């Protein structure tokens, strides 16, 4: 049985109604995917902006907006489909050269956007889309230009993956700045600022390849697929670039959101290390990727963060999870963590080297499954809060350059200690 036949068989997860809609859409040049779940508050303006972006940047191209909805009950799909441009419902205030389909399908609910992305990629393959982007339905700061910024490098530039860069508050995206970006950079050798991409673009050929190779039906398939997509592009040797989009709106997160977020991101990264070992184990140093616009910009407005609470959660966690940490961490690392956990707010500091060793030891333990993998990810949460406390302290008064320098120092530390990870990886084998 050929790979193509296998894939077609897999695609039976698409409903008959959705297939009928895809037949009506036909072959497209551009596909915009929009995974949603109860996003009625924001999705109307998002799809409107997407439509404007298509009409401005790609007026001649055959385009479609595909909404993969995870069972919204607030009318989200209806808002998405209402922005279609067709001759049956002509819009007097809008001029478009050709029809623009905006269609929706309901896909299974579950953690993360994996099923939705799978649906979008399957549709992209069936419609033979040349360039695709996936947009966040919550992006209040979305501008029409973002559509071109993500599509152009693929449609006209020949790249296979476009990762976004943003203007963010310096304390926004802390998992990204303190773990994902530096670790992916150190292990996989490419300086991709947002490897877990809220918005991204990809070529039809790469999407098709990923659709066929990703283990969609294993238990982890839904979690962190955006990150695994990035890693697949790197390991597959696809052309990757970054494109600056603009200011990314800040999303308020509750403390309780951290563990699910770590599952989605760090869990996905740790899971990928084993199959990708042959790739990352041979990489030394890191290279920049072609970037259109700024690589990263920081907003410096004062922001209120309860640092004291972060440190308390760190100390409590180190104390309460000692037995768990004994299974995960080396004695020296655990001892050092226990030492700093006893320090007061003023003296407390979770240095970069200790943080990198911690993360690497967690990664190695995850690979070995010394305890339940999910428990490993949960155990990382209090330690991450301690690291965040230090990051906030070090950068509280820092300029954009200072913040960038500190992130760069951390990245270099991840790169410098990579042999330590390899050593643990091999010894545990």
């Amino acid at each position: 049985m050929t790979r193509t036949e296998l894939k077609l068989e897999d695609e039976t997860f698409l409903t008959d109604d959705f297939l009928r809609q895809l037949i009506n859409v036909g072959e497209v040049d551009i596909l915009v995917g929009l995974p949603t779940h109860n996003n009625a508050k924001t999705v109307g303006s998002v799809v409107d902006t997407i439509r404007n972006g298509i009409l401005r940047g790609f007026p001649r191209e055959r385009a479609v907006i595909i909404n993969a909805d995870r069972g919204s009950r607030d009318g989200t799909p209806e808002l998405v489909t209402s922005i279609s441009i067709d001759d049956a419902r002509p819009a007097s205030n809008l001029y478009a050269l050709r029809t623009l389909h905006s269609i929706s399908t309901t896909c299974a609910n579950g953690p993360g956007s994996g099923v939705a992305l799978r649906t979008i990629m399957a549709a992209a393959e069936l419609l033979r889309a040349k360039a695709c982007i996936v947009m966040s339905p919550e992006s209040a700061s979305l501008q029409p230009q973002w559509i071109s910024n993500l599509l152009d490098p693929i449609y006209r530039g020949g790249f296979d993956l476009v990762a976004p860069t943003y203007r963010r508050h310096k304390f926004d995206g802390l998992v990204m700045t303190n773990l994902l970006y530096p670790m992916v950079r150190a292990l996989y050798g490419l300086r991709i600022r947002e490897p877990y991409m809220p918005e991204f673009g990809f070529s039809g050929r790469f999407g098709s390849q990923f659709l066929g190779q990703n283990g969609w039906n294993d238990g982890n398939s839904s979690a962190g697929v955006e990150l695994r997509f990035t890693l697949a592009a790197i390991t597959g040797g696809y052309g990757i670039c970054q494109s600056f989009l603009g200011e990314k709106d800040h999303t308020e997160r509750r403390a309780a959101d951290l563990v699910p977020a770590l599952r989605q991101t760090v869990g996905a990264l740790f899971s990928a290390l084993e199959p990708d070992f042959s790739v990352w184990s041979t990489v030394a140093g890191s290279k920049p990727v072609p970037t259109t616009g700024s690589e990263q910009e920081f907003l410096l407005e004062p922001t209120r963060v309860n640092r004291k609470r972060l440190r308390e959660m760190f100390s409590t966690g180190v104390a309460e999870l000692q037995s768990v940490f004994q299974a995960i961490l080396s004695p020296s690392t655990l001892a050092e963590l226990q030492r700093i956990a006893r320090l007061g707010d003023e003296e407390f500091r979770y240095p970069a080297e200790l943080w990198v060793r911690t993360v690497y030891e967690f990664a190695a333990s995850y690979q070995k499954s010394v305890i339940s993998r999910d428990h490993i990810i949960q155990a990382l949460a209090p330690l991450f809060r301690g690291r965040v406390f230090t990051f906030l302290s070090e950068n509280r008064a820092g300029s954009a350059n200072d913040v960038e320098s500190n992130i760069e120092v951390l990245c270099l530390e991840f790169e410098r200690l990579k042999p330590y990870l390899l050593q643990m990886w091999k010894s545990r084998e």
Partner: protein
Amino acid sequence: MPLNKDALWYKDAIIYQVHVRTFHDSNGDGIGDFQGLEQKLDYLQELGINAIWLMPFFPSPLRDDGYDIADYNTVHPSYGTLEDFRKLLESAHERGIRVIIEMVLNHTSDQHPWFQEARSSQNNPRRDWYVWSDTDNLYKGARIIFLDTEKSNWAWDPISKSYYWHRFFSHQPDLNYDNPAVRVQMWNLMKFWLEMGVDAFRLDAVPYLVEREGTNCENLPETHNYLKELRRKLDEHFTDRMLLAEANQWPADLRPYFGDGDEFHMAFHFPLMPRMFMGLKLEDRKPITEILQQTPEIPPSCQWSLFLRNHDELTLEMVTDMERDYMYDMYAASKTMRLNLGIRRRLAPLLNNDRRRIELMNGMLMSLPGTPIIYYGDEIGMGDNILLGDRNGVRTPMQWSGGWNAGFSIAEPQRLYAPLIQDPVYGYPAVNVISQRESEHSLLRWMQRIITARRSNGVFGRGSIEFLYPANHRILAYLRRLGKETVLVVNNLSSTAQAVELDLRRYKGNILIEMFGNNIFPRVGDMPYLLTLGPYQFYWFRLRRV
């Protein structure tokens, strides 16, 4: 075959547009003539058309292919005599073919005696037959139409030392329709030809007859008043004659030319034509349905005139800037192919000589509401010569055979009024009437069949149209209805095979009969009617309750 005496004959007509000069040369001087055209009437009858539209054949310096008329009362000597024209008219009528001729109301040639008199002195009685001014600052709101050649609508006359108004070339001064003498004279000229037996006039450039300060000098009420005056006189004196308006305008601006059925009988639907090409290239019906949605209802006695190509450039005046750029990029990649705001190419080269696309476009031409016009040579897929100046590249001699001068003339080749198309693809050895007559599957034979199919059912000329809007936007589907007769037309604008579901539930119980092969298709039921169409395929179905 007798003439169709129905006063609404133009609704059922299929018009063939031809320039006498281009069709057939009977006397070997290298220029087509009336006798030559008359000799080819059997061919036109065999093709199935029932009206010919002759481009201007009046005496003229021919600086605008005859649209610069120097004498309205006779014919250009190159084409024969007035008697030759009379004979052509009779012969056409004997074959049931109506004859439409040109009447250029807006302007004359600067060689016309009227203008020569008018410019001779400011006191000449004919002075006021044209529009004069001491300044070129009047009527600044009027656009310049021939952008590639003209910088102003005013031209300086060194003889009478003043400016004269011209909307087209500077050698075509506009007549002054504020002068009652001009109005009377132009009707008298029309009457002269109508009394001879001419069936209809294509009235050239009608939006521009009257000028008023502070306007764009187009479609003015005074212009409509005069056109209504002409129609009134026509109806007073004749019973089954027709006026066809050439007004390159948006549908809403065109609508007044029909009046309440008391102005023009017919008008060209200019905005539709480029959108048919656009829809084909986009593989999307939207441009076509949108312009037809914007097309207002017209009085019952009136009719749109539809065409794919004609003697002019494929005009892109009635499209947006974005659409124009798209059309240029898709259909006129070489700047040599562009002229004014248009593309000076024939149908077959525009469609890359793709037989399926040529057939689809003709299929739409024949089935959309209106009277179709076929430009001479397009029925055999003639090519063009973009190296010839102005619009002459689409006005080359008709290709009758693969022999001497393509069977057009026995003259020495260098004496032909224009060089023959000789390239390997479109040249006369490859594309000609005789060889296509021999082949049952030629474009010519196919054109005969579709014309027969069109004429077999009055629904196309007189019926209403209702668009179906299947979710597949590559499919253009519509119902044509007249009385109890209903025809379903389904066009696939795509280069790939398509499936489409049509909502025909209200015709539940009907069977579909495909009109070219008379084959029966499944009965319409409660479910959407599923059809599959090959690339650029189209169907015409009669709906029958059995």
